[in-house]
């Protein structure tokens, strides 16, 4: 039920409240029941109606007590049998600037203004203390909205006698009280009014006609805010943001545009917007939000994108990275199992409406807000109140690390035994050819584009490629990989030259070896080596010589030759290394790819 996702359809919520309530009550849910006393300084009926809906949406069935109009203080301090008998689990003190009985005026000295401030504050502390003593339950207190008119204009905010100044100070005192008292929370009416738009909020028709403290249309937002505090107190906050990558965490599609092509970081406006969103998520970790990835991508591309130098979030910021071609709802369920959390504690964040629809339909208890355009993402998620913070612990900060360990353990258990099975399930076939005319262009392109899985970073033109192919002393191999999802095209290129030393021993010297990261960990490189060794043998070579020339980007293949049984024969100060293999001692690698 999306009635409570931001932005709210307030007209609908007000008009259809009876129907919505019926619908919410009909849902299958482990209800918790709570008694909520709303002590009002203004009319509170609509606040209660809307709060009831919000709480039902969170699985809380609330029974309400409302004080008679304006009796918030009398009920608390002087006592009220009905309230005593009700014995609330939680108390909302619903007051507004209209309940401030005395403001300083320009006739007062600054000292007198301070006295007025103290007496207004004392009026409230007396109430809170009485409520705490009698009921010893959480208290949610509105702070004050500002009046939408200012007697002294701008001076109103800086002069001790101004109302704006007075309200700001009173709000600070409320905040200090909240900081030093357990079980005491502020409902930030000041923010809600500003966010709604003060002039519309303060439409005085509603006060003079019905004694509502604000525009009726704003009340669903106020109720939402109070509801967020209550559900947070009762442990119903969300715990995990499950995030898409392409066009959600960065602009563009990393698989197509490459890491260099995605928009993230300070260079362009689009990149800035995404960077700000990543920073928002990073900051949310401070209040215990846990981040996970659910993206249709090759895992390597996802990691490469997250390692973009201008990115704020790095792979380690995520407890779980599901970058694959599985349906997203299935990934979510898997993440939930690995973290041993319920999916109802997940918020799914994806720019693609189709993906959101699937998740909504398959795992309805996941929150799936319509996040809008990238410049709306933060506002929509923030206003959703998913991580309303009523308690803040050291553990919140360590949460990512904890879940990290949990997810890793679960993944190892789940996948270690059957990685081969997983590879089989991809139904891969490969076609290995020489540098045929039709692929010359692609091969040349790969030599100029591939940076990570590239042993020698030898850049070639089409002519270079062609002349290698035409030279009999060269072995040229291009590998194309097809799996059940897609034909990945030519993804790997290897070239070597047969050389003969003075003792007439033939060796294959590998000039070029690269592979697209899209197909990492598929065993394609194993198949290429098997093939290369076999070809070298037929050309009469007894040795293979490999080179690794380090660059800023190709650290991942530093030990590549070692994994195939090569021995390092030399390495210079810059890390340029030469490896050698005795062909006779080569052990065929087992592969899960069929050859065409």
């Amino acid at each position, binding site marked *: 039920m999306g009635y409570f996702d931001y932005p709210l359809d307030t007209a609908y919520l007000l008009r*259809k409240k009876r129907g919505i309530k*019926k619908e919410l009550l009909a849902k299958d849910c482990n209800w918790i029941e709570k008694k909520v006393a709303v002590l009002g300084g203004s009319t509170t009926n609509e606040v209660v109606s809307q709060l009831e809906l919000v709480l039902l949406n969170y699985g809380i069935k609330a029974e309400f007590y409302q004080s008679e109009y304006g009796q918030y203080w009398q009920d608390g301090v002087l006592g009220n049998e009905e309230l005593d008998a009700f014995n609330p689990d939680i108390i909302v003190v619903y007051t507004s600037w209209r309940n401030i009985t005395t403001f300083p005026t320009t006739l007062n000295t600054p000292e007198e203004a301070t006295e007025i401030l103290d007496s207004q504050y004392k009026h409230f502390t007396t109430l809170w203390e009485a409520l705490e003593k009698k009921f010893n339950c959480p208290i949610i207190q509105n702070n004050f909205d500002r009046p939408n008119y200012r007697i002294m204009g701008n001076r109103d905010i800086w002069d001790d006698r101004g109302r704006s100044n007075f309200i700001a100070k009173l709000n600070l005192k409320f905040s200090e009280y909240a900081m030093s008292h357990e079980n005491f929370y502020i409902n930030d009416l000041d923010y809600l009014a500003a966010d709604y738009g003060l002039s519309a909020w303060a439409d005085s028709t509603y006060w*003079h*006609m*019905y004694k509502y403290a604000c525009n009726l249309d704003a009340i669903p937002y106020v109720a939402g805010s109070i509801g967020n505090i209550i559900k947070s107190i009762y442990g119903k906050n969300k715990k995990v943001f499950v995030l898409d990558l392409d066009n959600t965490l960065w602009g563009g599609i990393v698989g197509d545009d490459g890491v260099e092509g995605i928009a993230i970081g300070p260079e362009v406006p689009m990149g800035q917007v995404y960077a700000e969103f990543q920073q928002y998520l990073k900051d949310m970790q401070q209040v215990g939000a846990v981040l996970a990835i659910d993206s249709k991508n090759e895992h390597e591309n996802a990691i490469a994108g997250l390692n973009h130098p201008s990115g704020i979030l790095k792979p380690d910021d995520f407890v779980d990275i599901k970058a694959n071609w599985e349906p997203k709802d299935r990934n979510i369920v898997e993440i939930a199992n690995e973290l041993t959390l319920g999916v109802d504690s997940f918020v799914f964040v994806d720019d693609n409406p189709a993906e959101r629809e699937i998740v909504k339909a398959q795992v309805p208890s996941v929150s799936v807000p319509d996040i809008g355009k990238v410049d709306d993402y933060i506002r929509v998620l923030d206003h959703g109140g998913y991580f309303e913070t009523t308690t803040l612990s050291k553990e919140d900060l360590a949460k990512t690390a904890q879940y990290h360990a949990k997810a890793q353990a679960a993944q190892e258990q789940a996948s270690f035994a059957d990685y081969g099975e997983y590879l089989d399930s991809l139904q891969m076939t490969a076609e290995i050819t020489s540098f045929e005319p039709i692929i010359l262009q692609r091969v040349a392109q790969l030599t100029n584009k591939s940076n990570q899985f590239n042993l020698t970073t030898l850049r070639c033109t089409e002519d270079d490629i062609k002349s290698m192919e035409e030279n009999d002393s060269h072995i040229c191999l291009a590998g194309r990989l097809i799996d059940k999802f897609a034909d990945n095209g030519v993804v790997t290129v290897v070239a070597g030259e047969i050389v003969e030393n003075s003792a007439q021993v033939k060796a294959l010297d590998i000039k070029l070896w690269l592979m697209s990261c899209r197909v990492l960990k598929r065993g394609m490189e194993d198949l290429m080596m098997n093939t290369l060794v076999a070809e070298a043998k037929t050309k009469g070579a007894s040795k293979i010589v490999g080179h690794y020339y380090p660059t800023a980007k190709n650290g991942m293949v530093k030990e590549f030759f070692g994994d195939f049984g090569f021995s390092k024969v030399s390495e210079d100060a810059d890390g340029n290394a030469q490896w050698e293999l005795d062909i006779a001692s080569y052990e065929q690698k087992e592969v899960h790819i069929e050859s065409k």
Partner: protein
Amino acid sequence: MTRAEIMNGLTEIFRDVFEDDSLVLTEDTNANDIDDWDSLMHITILQAVQGEFNVEFGIDEITSMKNVGEMINLVESKLK
């Protein structure tokens, strides 16, 4: 917009607000005719009517409204 069209719009609103699809309004219908039509429900109705027809009622206009017919009059005059 004709009076009949306004009446249709009002009927929709009343049915939503009172969660009663069988509700039928006449120009004479007033707060005594519908259970639950109390001052609080009246506020909800007025809010919905102003939103639906994109009009705004003044305080004096709200207080002088006695039945559905007068509500139609008011909406009609605002739409002119």
